[in-house]
């Protein structure tokens, strides 16, 4: 497993951080002082003191749109031993889900995080389900110890981009 994890990086999987469309990122039930950028953004997510925390109960619903079509290969979800997430469901290309309809659709993938994962070991996803992803919804259903608040220290996604046209590179053909 560890060999696979290491080799995932060799296969040109990049951190999809730079393809996240930050203007559309949403998180339901987050504690406003411990919010999503603490887990997603470069720098913040490396800081162990800064966590994403849930508010009213232990569930969290995170919506991440991308500015390009991507394929997601694996994910890293780090958190504290006790309050870190346990059961996580991922939905590809579902816009604006709410807690009420999160159980209406089958998830694209379901992962159960172990202690190793919470320490930084990447989780391999069902790659076939994530070939054409415009947006990702992460539903954290419960946490390791069953406490009232779930805490996430870092969320990182790895994958590749699909060959999409970069509109900025589009230039007019010069006439001879």
């Amino acid at each position: 497993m560890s060999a696979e994890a290491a080799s995932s990086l060799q296969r040109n999987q990049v951190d999809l951080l730079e393809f996240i469309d930050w203007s559309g990122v949403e998180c339901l039930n987050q504690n406003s002082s411990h919010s999503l950028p603490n887990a997603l953004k470069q720098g913040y997510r490396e800081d162990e003191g800064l966590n994403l925390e849930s508010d009213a109960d232990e569930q969290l619903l995170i919506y991440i749109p991308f500015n390009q079509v991507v394929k997601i290969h694996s994910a890293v979800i780090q958190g504290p031993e006790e309050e870190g997430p346990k059961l996580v469901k991922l939905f590809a290309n579902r816009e604006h889900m709410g807690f009420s309809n999160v159980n209406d659709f089958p998830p694209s993938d379901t992962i159960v995080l172990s202690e190793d994962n919470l320490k930084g070991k990447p989780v391999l996803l069902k790659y076939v389900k994530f070939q054409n992803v415009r947006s990702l919804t992460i539903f954290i259903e419960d946490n390791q110890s069953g406490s009232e608040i779930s805490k996430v220290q870092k969320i990182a996604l790895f994958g590749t981009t699909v060959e999409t046209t970069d509109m900025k590179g589009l230039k007019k053909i010069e006439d001879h």
Partner: protein
Amino acid sequence: MVLEATMICIDNSEWMRNGDYSPTRFDAQKDAVSLICGAKTQANPENTVGVLTMAGKGVRVLVTPTSDLGKILACAHGVEVGGEMNLAAGIQVAQLALKHRQNKKQQQRIIVFVGSPVKYDKKVLELIGRKLKKNSVALDIVNFGEEDEEKTEKLEALLAAVNNNDSSHIVHVPPGPSALSDVLISTPIFTGDGEGASGYVAAAAAAAGGGFEFGVDPNLDPELALALRVSMEEERARQEAAAKKAAEEAGKGEKGEPSTSQDAIMTENVDPGTSEPEKKTHDLTDDENALLQQALAMSMDDSSSTVAVRDTDMSDASADDHDLQLALQLSVQDGKGDQSNPNDANNIFADQSYMSSVLAQLPGVDPNDPAIKDLLASMQNQSEKKEEDSESKEEEKK
């Protein structure tokens, strides 16, 4: 200007028949609702508002969130008062309606009017509050009507469960002389956490007559406002002229000090009974005077007729007081002298609206200019002062 979708929950239970908020609790509520709708739609054109009723046969959505203000205001018609309010169901239906809003970028907000007793447990309400917070729905509670400790306690608990960063508020409105809407205007429910809507609020307050004299907003009805203002000025001018006459008569022999008027604005303290010699001299420059009279002379058509009549009145009403008589004669002469020119203008001044329109058309003449007001006053004095003299004489005798 927060982009928001709002659902307003109206309490139309039997308790709303009470008249402790005029005219009835239900009507006061309806006013407040229409004000809120207006404020929200003005704050941001993309805002949507929906309305539902909580009592009656059951929770019923009158209009789903829409930005069409007319539709929202119309839906409140024909709502019957009766039944018992179901707070929990009302809030949940509101939440559902918001979930299905067209524009998912809008923030969700529920405004609930609670006028009747709350029959749900605190626990149940707290659960509902937490669910709202989890789905990032803000809640504003208007606590009015029935008052009991339990109700207040329960609503406060609900607010505490929902509140996230002070985006939710509760307002307690006790019964009293001021209307429900007026009390709400100053609350964060209207001002939306300090931003937006304040412009609308000011206009609404003004339209209600609070900010403007005469209770008429010049923006809405300029002619009416102007006519009211001019007639008020005319009345003040008359009164002041009468006072002036009294002062002149009192101090005629000694050539009372010419006190220069400060702004030449009519003072409200002037009434015909004052004995203080308060002479007001006109600050008009001769140029202005001549110009204005010229303009008026050009535009007038009527011929004067009433002056002669007033002269006869004068002689009939001659006083016993010798001084008074002298003064009267002097003033008559003064009047005649001044009347030679704007003779015909006197009748024009009888027609208020015509005069105001003429003034408005004259370039460089601002009807509000104190100098112009003075001139008007003086004109009016001359045409009416005969009657004033007889009036003031009678009052002096008293």
